[in-house]
């Protein structure tokens, strides 16, 4: 056997580059699978068969595009105007009662959440700060351990197969 030479020597690097470069340049293109053309044609037919409203906005007819933009602008204007008008009139009690009556359950639910949040906040303030630091450190450690464990599992069970 001949002794290995230093592959980092500039002269050797150049020779290997030339040799490998020549081999790769002589390499003909790989033959595409026979199914490729059929797949492309089938996908083109599928796309052509789609109605315009299932295509992207760019492919919509020009008139529909214009109508959509105008409609959107009108909707925005309507929403803004309605908000301003409602904000002015909503002061009267009958209106407020009409709106809030069907939403009573939502109010009660929000109230319950608010009490629960208040209780949690009181509890949180009662915990000594060093316990919080220990808890945070523990959570971070567990998180890192979980990531390391899954990485090891990936390497052992999947990547090395």
């Amino acid at each position, binding site marked *: 056997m*001949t002794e290995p030479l230093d592959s980092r020597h500039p002269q050797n690097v150049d020779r290997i*580059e030339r040799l*490998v470069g020549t081999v790769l*340049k002589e390499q003909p*293109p790989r033959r595409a699978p026979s199914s490729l*053309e059929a797949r492309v044609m089938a996908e083109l037919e599928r796309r052509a068969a789609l109605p315009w409203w299932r295509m992207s906005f760019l492919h919509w007819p020009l008139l529909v595009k214009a109508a959509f933009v105008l409609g959107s602008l009108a909707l925005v204007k309507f929403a803004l105007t309605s908000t301003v008008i409602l904000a002015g009139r909503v002061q009267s009690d009958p209106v407020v009662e009409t709106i809030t009556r069907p939403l009573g359950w939502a109010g009660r639910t929000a109230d319950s959440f608010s009490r629960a949040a208040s209780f949690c906040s009181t509890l949180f303030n009662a915990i000594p700060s060093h316990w919080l630091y220990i808890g945070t450190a523990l959570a971070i450690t567990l998180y890192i351990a979980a*990531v390391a464990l899954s990485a090891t599992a990936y*390497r052992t069970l999947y*990547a*090395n197969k």
Partner: protein
Amino acid sequence: MHAYQDMVFSTAARLTGNDAVAEDLAQETFLKAYEHFDTLKESPTAGGWLKTVVTNLTLNHLSRYRKRWKFFSDLRRPDAEEDDSESGVPEALLGLSSPDDLFGGVQADERRAIVERALKQLPEHQRVPLVLYHFEEMPYQDIAQHLKVSLPKIKTDIMRARLALAKVMSGSGLTLENLET
């Protein structure tokens, strides 16, 4: 499409090292081409356009895949393989001046298959810059920019890829006798 499908598929297959993914990318490239059919059908640069599109689509695909698995892939990068490819190159290999010397009596078809297999065996961080440099004739600087990797690393990866490729090729097709002639 007939005229370009092999070129498009080859580019994607050599960059990804995966024929199924390469077929998907080739399909996507031709679908994009059909969207620009009016400008491309008479264009003399249609081949170049297709090559650019398939290269960019493939690099985007690889970049998405790399980000998704970066953490895990970094863990499993085989350092031993890197060390091996840098350790040296047989003197006999350096004495060769042409592919015919390298492959000796190996038939052309078999020679092509050996090269394609050797390319597939390279790790992605070596294969992609090597293919971009030798097949796509992209300069080192452009490869570094495309892959968002430093220029020295690109040069090192390509050098290691060449060495690994030369070793695999010589190991597949050569006996010591026809290496030394």
